[in-house]
Structure formats: C-alpha cells, structure tokens
C-alpha cells in the first residue's frame, strides 16, 4: 500500500466499528514476499471477519495452499457496512489482510461458500476488488474466480459469476489445480485453455461449458455440454484416507472475539445417521474417522501454536466417533492440568455421555441441548431422526438428576407430511421435558427448570431425500410458529421462532437454477449485503428482484418436483445415487426408517462396505 493510501486507511480505521477486523497480522498469519511466488491465491470468505475466522474450512485451505513454496494464499473477508461506505468514499479497493494487495492482482480469487444468503456479499467483494462480476466480462487480465464449500453442491445460481467451481474436499484436488495453473502460466496459455484442461478433473465444474434449455413451464428441458472436455457428471473430490490427510499444525487466531475462539478437532467427516433433511449428512459421505493418536497429535500442536484455552470437537454427530470415550478421557487427562477445556457440541445424551460431560464441565452446568427436530414419533420417522421420546425424556431425567436445570430443544417446522398434530406435539414434548423435572423430589430442585425451545424453518436442500419436496410458504410457517406458542402450557418453557421469510429466500436460492444469477446481481445492486443477518435482510428486495427478472420465488421454493424432473444440480454427484435418494424419499412418505450406516449398509452409492471408497 502506498503511503498516502496507508494514511487514508488508518484514518478510516479510526472511525469504523471493530477496526481490528481489517488489520491482519494475526498470530500464525503466513508471511511471504509476493515477489517470491509465482501464484497468488486470494481466499475469500463472503461474511464478516469474525464468522470467517471461525470457519474450519477456511483455516484448512489457508495452510493447505500455503504449504506450497510457489503459492501465497492471502485472505479477504466481507467488509461491514461502515467499512464498505468508507472504502467507496475514498476509492480504496478490497485488499488482502496479509500484504494489503488489491484483489484484482491475484491469479485466483476463490470464495468459500457456506451459506446461500452470502451470495450478494460475494458480488460486493468482487466489485470492491474492481473485478467485473460476470465471467463473460472478465478478460485475461482479471483473476480466475472460483468457488467451493457446501453451497456449491448446487452451483447453478452463481453460474454467471464463477469461472470454475470446486465440488468436494479441497485437500484432494486443489494441489493438482494449482500445478496445472503453474505450468500453463509458464507456457503463457490462456484462461480458457486452463479451464478446458481442468474441466476433466473430478470435482471441477466449469459452468460456461454447459448450455441449459428450459421448458415453457420454467423447468429444465435439457443440459448439454458445449465443450469436448465437459463431463456429463461432475463427481465430488474427497479424501479417501482421512486419517493421513492434511490438517494444519497451526490456526489463525482471530484478533477480535470470533464465533469460535478455540482449537477445533475434526473427529471424522461424514455421518452415519442418514437424517433425510440433512445435506451435510449426504454430501460428506462416506464416514471417515481419524485415529485417536492423530487427534491427540493435532490437539497438542494446535494448543501450543495458538494458546487457546478450549478444544472443541467438531463433526456432524460427535458421539458417534468410534473411540469417543477413550478420546475424551485422553484429552481431559492431557489438557486439564494446562487449564485447557474440552467442549462438546451435538451429543446424544445417555448415561455414558453425561458422565463425560460431568468431567468436562467441572462444576458449572451449562445448558444441555437436544435436537428432536420433530415433535411426534411419526414425523421423526419421516425424517429418519433416530431419537425416541423415551430417550429424550430419559436423557433429561438423568441430566436433571446430575444437576442440570437448563435444557435447549431444537425443532424444525414445515417438514414434509407435517400435520397440525405434529405441530402440537412440539408443544407437548416441550411441556413433558419440563414436567420431567418436577418428578424429582423437591429437595433436588434447587431452581426452577428452564426449557428453551427453538423452531427453525425447514428448507429442502439439494442432494437430500427431500430435494423434490415443496417448501412451506412463509404464511404457513408463521402460523405453525404461532400455534406452537399458543399450545405450550408450562411457563418454564420459552419458545423462539423467527426468520420464516429469510428461509423462503434461502429455499429459492438453494434449489435455484442459473437464471437466479441475474436475481442475485440485482439484489446486490439494490444494496443487499449480509442478507443472512436478520437485521439486514430485506424480503422486499428479493421479491422485487425476482419479479424484475420475470421469475417467481414460489416456483423455486414452494413447488414440489416430480422424480423425473431435470434438477439444476443433477449433474453434480455427491456419490449418493439418485435411486437411493428416491427410495429414501418414498420411505419417508411411508414413515419407514433406514438404519444407520454402522448397523446396516443401505447401499447409498459410496460403496464403503465393499472397499471401493474413492471410486464413486
């Protein structure tokens, strides 16, 4: 940065909120001289600094790419409103936190997309970086725009902006992508030549190499590759040997309080449970665990490299880890003397896990969380949430006996086949959880119990058994929320429900086709930023953008699809077969459950049981 810009930047920092978001120089930041590398990779997170710094994928990719001596990976986050305003006022472009280089100077500008409602932030970051939004308007002088992360399992809504999508786990193919770039750059080849070459690699999707035709009714008529290297099906990239795959020895430590200020251990990828609504549960298959030895090594390295005083275990259903108890005991034994806590998210509560939690949480009993997701057993069977009311109440009973008096319950509303009865069941189950407390003798009840119930709105996601389902309208969701509120009798139960309109837009985007690029661009141009933050979300802005493009929100969100409809993401393969998803969808309608992967293989397509993992 030139001296004059530096002065301006500092003057801006004197007046924006949380200025430490914009200064870089964190503990464990990678320092290289850009002159010493031949490839510069701008890793972008289209949300605020504190959210991005808590993202494990971002941390892994940062160090994974920076292992290479020929490449420097630098970070960009979405500037908050006050910062954007000042950057535009003083014509300062988006700059990296490592070297304050302009985004437009990078070879790659790569976005990690964790949430559909961040799409407008992605466009804002490109624009602040003086990079044209549409890939058709970017010549050779501009960076290659790429994107990955959970959202790109349906990449279509961003097809107009992105040069290539990376579907799957970065550790697997990103090295190869950079190697090829390196060679092409040295040989003076064009961007198009590069994209043609990588289009053949698993996990790489170049949207411009496909033409989409639509039917009169708005559904897709055909999707045809228009380039010889464009694959019919893009298979996700994933690591087959997770235990030996890359995991950073360091982690960036956020300057300001982040969502998660702690060492994160990834116990396993994938999930054995098969909940039918859960996109992560399908797309991260197969379940791959790390050994306890590897995890302890990760923990040692990361605690000593960061100075964090908490270790958090991350995975989709943590207690399903095979060696869970011994891992917990080992961690507690090793770190309690160092004043480092071990924290547990998402546990299935039984006597075993309670005794572990007692150890973990020492004397302080924070609240305990259950996620029944649905109120009635019938509906829990529909979504394949393998948790019975008996287990929930027994779990709560044990927790109460051990001194817990705060319970959180998570539900979803708007699930397929849901009836008024299922909605009432949420209220009834919540009341019963509170009742259970009063079954204890009076002398054991030190304080009144507090049961916090929250209901989120179900959004049908691509690559799940519910990808064909219609989403409830915001009016229906609102009514269901109000019905639950009215039906709860116990005063110790508090109920929270919100964001039904936001969920509908999320629903439209997550199952959208590439015509939505124009809608997203319009919302961005009309001021849409941080649309996933309730206080910044504007339904009206989305409504008018859909209308202006001649598209309807309900077509994407509310409409139920036939099994034979061509879906916008059909050419992206998570490894789970379409036949399996259809079978699951049919079983859901019959309320039939599917056993977890460990009990019995249901032949979803990943082939873990017959040793063909990696060949999907």
């Amino acid at each position: 940065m030139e001296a004059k810009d530096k002065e301006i930047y500092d003057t801006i920092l004197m007046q924006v909120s949380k200025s430490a978001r914009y200064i870089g120089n964190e503990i464990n930041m990678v320092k290289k001289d850009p002159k010493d590398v031949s490839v510069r990779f701008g890793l972008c997170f289209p949300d605020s600094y504190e959210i991005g710094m808590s993202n494990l994928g971002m941390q892994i990719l940062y160090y994974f790419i920076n292992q290479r001596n020929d490449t420097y990976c630098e970070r960009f986050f979405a500037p908050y409103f006050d910062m954007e305003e000042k950057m535009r006022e003083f014509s300062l472009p988006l700059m990296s936190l490592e070297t304050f280089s302009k985004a437009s100077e990078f070879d790659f500008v790569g976005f990690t997309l964790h949430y559909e409602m961040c799409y407008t932030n992605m466009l804002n970051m490109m624009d602040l970086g003086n990079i044209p939004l549409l890939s058709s308007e970017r010549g050779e002088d501009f960076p290659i725009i790429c994107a990955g992360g959970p959202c790109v399992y349906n990449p279509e809504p961003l097809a107009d902006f992105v040069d290539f999508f990376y579907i799957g786990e970065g550790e697997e193919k990103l090295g190869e992508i950079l190697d090829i770039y390196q060679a092409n750059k040295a040989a003076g080849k064009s961007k198009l030549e590069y994209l043609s070459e990588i289009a053949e690699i698993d996990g790489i999707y170049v949207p411009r190499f496909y033409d989409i035709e639509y039917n009169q009714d708005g559904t897709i008529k055909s999707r045809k590759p228009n380039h010889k290297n464009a694959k019919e099906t893009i298979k996700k990239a994933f690591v087959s040997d997770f235990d030996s795959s890359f995991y950073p020895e360091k982690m960036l430590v956020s300057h300001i309080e982040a969502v998660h200020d702690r060492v994160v251990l990834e116990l396993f990828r994938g999930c054995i449970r098969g909940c039918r609504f859960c996109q992560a549960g399908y797309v991260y298959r197969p379940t791959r665990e790390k050994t306890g030895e590897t995890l302890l090594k990760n923990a040692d390295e990361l605690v000593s490299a960061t100075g964090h005083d908490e270790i958090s275990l991350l995975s989709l259903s943590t207690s399903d880890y095979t060696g869970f108890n011994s891992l917990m005991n080992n961690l507690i034994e090793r770190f309690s003397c160092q004043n480092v806590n071990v924290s547990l998210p998402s546990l299935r509560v039984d006597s075993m896990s309670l005794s572990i939690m007692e150890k973990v949480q020492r004397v302080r009993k924070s609240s305990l969380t259950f996620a029944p997701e649905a109120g009635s057993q019938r509906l829990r069977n529909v979504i394949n949430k393998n948790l019975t009311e008996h287990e929930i109440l027994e779990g709560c009973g044990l927790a109460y006996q051990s001194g817990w008096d705060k319970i959180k319950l998570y539900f979803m509303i708007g699930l397929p086949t849901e009836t008024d009865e299922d909605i009432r069941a949420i209220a009834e189950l919540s009341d019963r959880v509170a009742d259970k407390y009063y079954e204890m003798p009076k002398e054991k009840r030190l304080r009144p119990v507090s049961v916090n119930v929250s209901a989120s709105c179900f959004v049908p996601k691509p690559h799940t058994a519910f990808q064909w389902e219609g989403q409830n309208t915001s009016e229906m969701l609102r009514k269901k929320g109000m019905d639950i509120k009215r039906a709860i009798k116990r005063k110790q139960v508090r109920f929270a429900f919100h964001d039904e309109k936001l969920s509908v837009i999320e629903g439209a985007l997550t199952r959208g086709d590439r015509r939505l690029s124009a809608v997203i661009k319009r919302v961005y141009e009309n001021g849409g930023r941080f649309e996933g933050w309730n206080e910044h979300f504007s339904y009206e802005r989305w409504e008018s953008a859909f209308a202006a493009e001649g598209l309807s929100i309900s077509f994407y969100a509310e409409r139920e699809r036939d099994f034979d409809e061509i879906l916008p993401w059909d050419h992206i393969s998570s490894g789970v077969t379409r036949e399996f998803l259809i079978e699951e969808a049919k079983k859901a309608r019959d309320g039939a459950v599917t056993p977890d992967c460990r009990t019995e293989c249901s032949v979803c397509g990943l082939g873990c049981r017959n040793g063909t993992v990696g060949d999907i």
Partner: protein
Amino acid sequence: MIKIRGYYEKIDRMRFIGHLDLLKLFQRAIARAGIPVAYSNGFNPHQLVGFALPLSTGYAGLNEIIEIDLTEPVDETAVMRDINNFLPEGIRIKEFITLGEGDKKAASLVAGAVYEVSLPSDADFGGLGAVLEEMKAAAEIITEKDDGTEINIKPLVSDITLLGDRCIEFVSAAGSFGSVKPEYVMKAVFRLCGVDFQKNKYALRYTRKALHLSGNGEKK
C-alpha cells in the same frame, strides 16, 4: 503471590486492537510461553493478568503497563523473551520488574498519562505555538464534552508542549484522581486555532508515551 509488572509497546496497526482483545492476546501468549501464571479460582479459572489503564482503540502506546500474578519467582529477562516470542509484530514487552511485597496494583496508582498527538497535514494550524502558550497561561481552558456540556480542563492538563510544527505533547490526569479524555484537550486546541474538530478528528494520531504512577509505583 508474586507479581511482575511489564512495560510494553502497542504500535502500528496493532493499535486498533481493543482492550479486551488485547487481554486475550496477552493471555494466549502467556499460556504458550509456559509462564507460571496464577489462575483465579472458581468455575472458570482465568489467568490473573491486568492492565494499569485501558488504552483507547486506535491509540498507540509506548510504555503501557501489564501486571501478571505468578505462582513462583521468575527471571524477568527470560520471561520477557519467552512472551515476546508469541506476540505479534507491533506488540512488545520492553521490561519486566518483580514487585515487592505489599506493592499496590498499577491500576490503583495511575495518576496521569503523557500523550503525543500529531495533527493532520492538510489543515491550517497557523499560530499553534501561540495557542499552546495561551493555554498554559490561561486560568481556565473550556472545552466541550461528547454530550455537549462544557468543562474546564485546566486543572487536569499540564506540560503542554509543541514538539514540532504539527505535534503536541501534554500530560493529562488519569485514574481515581480525576481524569480527562485526550480528545477533550485536542478539542480545546482546535477551538483556539479555529479549526473544525469534527472534520479532522479521525486524522489525529494519538500516542500514549508513558503512564505516571503515584507513590512507590513511579517508574524509576
């Protein structure tokens, strides 16, 4: 309990780290350095580390004070080196001293602070020297607080000095003996120079050069 007092600098971009985030930053560095730091009792033990006086976000500091409670005596030089190893560029401990039995916390001894403020180059501060002389001689210096009320800061400011043509130094009272925000002093300067404060306030660069401690806490 053994207590060590450190003098550190917080400069360059690191001046934008806020007070609580700075505390976390030091605590993590202390944990990594393996210093025999004492922890509080209770459900959530935390390191017993404290500062003498919070420094506003955006201000640089050259001799800020941090105090650490220890469970055993240490070699000050070694501890300084070890902690500095784990601090980011821009934050550096310059000296540690071990406090004596019965020495009070710096936080309870702070009496004043020396500030240096550099003025923006694109505003006209003609006659700045004369203005400062005027302030020194005046019986009272009236300035406006953030809430619009007027106060006389004369008893709380001393040693107003011109350090260069656009750089001012002064000592302002701090701590329990009465205090004044350095911005209020600058507001008075701007008012007397006839320059708009609101328009220029973000272009001012504040550096706290030293903290004055009363009684036995005075740095030698």
